[in-house]
């Protein structure tokens, strides 16, 4: 029989691991037209649950509420495809489990030419607000300026959809999107991909309790071993950790 | 400040007694050393220039304004903080602007207080209200709203509404001065018949015809003080103070 390793005291609500998810980011997490959760992170959670012998509940919420909710002990962690970074890893136990990079896309009916990231100098680029890509673009623009190029005009929108809307309306010249989102859009014929593979970074889950994080790490590792891990990433056209790299908590976690 | 306690023997005859009453608004003294006794069944008319304290006096009698000094008795009950509800029950008040409740029908206006305060059953309250509306001759308007009545009709409803609480003393504050001239008469007739039935009434009014015909005494006020208390013949025929002479010359064109 299945014996749960996670003790009741380690959970916010005994009996279930509650992870927040912001389903506005296909194919990682989104809803279909019935409102049912779909995407890689959803299926990962479904796989993890039996392996830790504890049900996983996905709590759908908007991003700004998530970190306070974890800190306040309203939920056990976040499973919303958040990028790893230093600061976050000091506040939460971060578990990187996949790799994403960024792509520049342009409207398919416009003749905008972007051959490399440096071509973005002096143009208007749309990104999602408060996102890794926004931060990356800001830093990159500063770098361009330091090299004597024109700065990038960064326009940040609430969701990837809003970014796309602005792109299609001609309000920005190009958009910087997570590559999986970019691929989805390209498939739908709305945009052309111009540059890809920028700013590679690791998607992570995040937890408030170390025991929970460790249990999830173990579950992910066993998925890596039995091939479920690769199968899921392939299904959604996303990239897992490089072969041979085992899932682990990265960073010090909260003190 | 005098504090005369009414002697038990005569108190039974007094409906309203004021002893050295003062009322101040901030620095301003609206009533100054007012002494007044109204006997049961008596009708007194209060007149005087604007701002002389007529409304303030009458409002002190039912506690709408709290007097600052002196003593007020209504039917032997002293007006104190603890007694104010009791005293209110002894009095009924009719205002210049009628102050009917505009969102209720005439009948609802008249049954509200008996039902909610006296806990009278609706049927009984409605029968009483209809009887009183008949008495003031507006019974056929019972289902209408105040705004559908003429001013004179509204004021008569206000009188009926006050009577429904069976007050011992009726207070009137310029009950006819907001009325069209033609409507004044019907309200004065109603008040006259009330007086004739023995109701104790205190009436602020400039209707000198009414004062002459109906009142037992006329009180003339000026600057917060009672200047004259006279039988109407004496007051109109031969006012004592210069101020009263001037006043009478101005209001009788």
């Amino acid at each position: 029989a299945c014996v749960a390793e996670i003790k009741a005291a380690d959970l916010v609500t005994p009996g279930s691991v509650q992870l927040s998810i912001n389903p506005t980011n296909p194919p990682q997490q989104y809803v279909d037209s019935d409102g049912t959760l779909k995407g890689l992170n959803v299926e990962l959670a479904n796989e993890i649950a039996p392996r830790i012998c504890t049900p996983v509940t996905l709590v759908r919420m908007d991003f700004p509420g998530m970190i306070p909710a974890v800190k306040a002990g309203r939920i056990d962690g976040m499973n919303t495809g958040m990028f790893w970074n230093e600061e976050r890893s000091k506040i939460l136990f971060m578990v990187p489990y996949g790799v994403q990079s960024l792509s520049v896309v342009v409207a398919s009916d416009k003749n905008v030419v972007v051959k490399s990231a440096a071509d973005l100098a002096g143009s208007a680029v749309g990104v999602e607000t408060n996102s890794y890509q926004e931060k990356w673009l800001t830093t990159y623009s500063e770098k361009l300026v330091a090299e004597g190029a024109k700065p990038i005009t960064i326009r940040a929108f609430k969701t990837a959809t809003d970014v796309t809307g602005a792109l299609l309306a001609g309000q920005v010249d190009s958009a910087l999107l997570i590559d999986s989102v970019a691929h989805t859009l390209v498939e739908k014929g709305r945009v052309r991909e111009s540059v890809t593979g920028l700013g590679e970074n690791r998607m992570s889950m995040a937890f408030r309790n170390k025991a929970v994080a460790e249990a999830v790490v173990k579950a992910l590792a066993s998925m890596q071993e039995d091939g479920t891990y690769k199968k899921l990433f392939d299904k959604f056209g996303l990239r897992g950790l490089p072969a041979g790299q085992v899932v682990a908590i990265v960073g010090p976690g909260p003190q | 400040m005098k504090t005369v306690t009414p002697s038990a023997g005569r108190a039974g005859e007094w409906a309203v007694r004021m002893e050295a009453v003062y009322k101040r608004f901030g620095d301003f003294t609206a009533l100054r050393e007012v002494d007044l006794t109204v006997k049961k069944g008596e009708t007194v008319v209060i007149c005087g220039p604007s701002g002389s304290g007529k409304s303030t006096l009458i409002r002190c009698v039912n506690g709408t304004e709290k007097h600052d000094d002196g003593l007020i008795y209504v039917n032997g009950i002293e007006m104190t903080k603890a007694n104010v509800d009791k005293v209110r029950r002894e009095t009924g008040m009719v205002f210049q602007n009628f102050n009917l409740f505009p969102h209720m029908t005439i009948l609802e206006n008249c049954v509200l207080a008996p039902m909610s305060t006296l806990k009278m059953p609706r049927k009984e309250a409605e029968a009483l209200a209809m009887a009183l509306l008949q008495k003031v001759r507006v019974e056929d308007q019972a289902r209408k709203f105040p705004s559908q009545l003429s001013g004179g009709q509204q004021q008569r409803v206000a009188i009926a509404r006050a009577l429904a609480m069976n007050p011992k003393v009726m207070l009137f504050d310029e009950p006819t001065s907001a009325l069209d001239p033609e409507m004044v008469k019907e309200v004065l007739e109603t008040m006259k018949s009330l007086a004739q039935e023995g109701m104790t009434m205190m009436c602020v009014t400039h209707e000198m015809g009414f004062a002459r015909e109906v009142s037992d005494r006329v009180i003339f006020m000026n600057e917060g003080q009672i200047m004259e208390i006279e039988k109407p013949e004496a007051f109109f025929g031969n006012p004592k103070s210069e101020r009263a002479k001037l006043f009478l010359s101005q209001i009788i064109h």
Partner: protein
Amino acid sequence: MHYFNVDAFIGYLSNWFLIGGVGVTVALTVAGVIGGLVLGMGIALLKVADARPLNWIAGFYIWLFRGTPLLVQLVVIYTGLPQLGIKLGAVESALLGLVLHEAAYLAEIIRSGFLSVPVGQREAAWALSLGRGTAFWRVILPQAFRLMIPPLGNSINGLLKATSLASVISVEELMRRSEMLMQEQFLTLEVYAAAAVYYLVLTTLWDLIQRPLEKHFGRSIKKGGR
């Protein structure tokens, strides 16, 4: 380029996930208004009471809850209160936040409604020996309410849209669900247009309530003139 996809728009108009969101929006709004009216009434009464300290308390409440964003209030209730041992669910937190916020606005509306009832009405109630409660519920409030209806309409229209902020604490109403649905097909304008239609239907429903209310409470008031 074919920009607005009419078929998709019509599809969204009959999407049950969105319609469920309409239900949440309506429920939050109705609860917010009713709770806000009750609490706002209390605050308005404190604000016009005869005791200075009570006035100050009410003034402070209005200043604080009208002056800070609903979003912040929601996050604090959902994640700050548990630090004090008060742990409310997402829906309860959303309701509490909406009620506290709305009450501050409604208190001002109610107060100006009270002030518009002529003092003569209070004096008449007093002179008739009506109890405080009867005077308030039967005499003052029905008259004040008549004048409160139009600003109440403004406020309800605002609240209908403000409920969308509850998505930050995981309550999914119409707007949030619209934004989620967009990700599937990236049909921004079509989904927003459908959401706008739902909101317009709700607004129109309110208008249908407001008109008879105005009529009912104004039925005894003379037309025209002043």
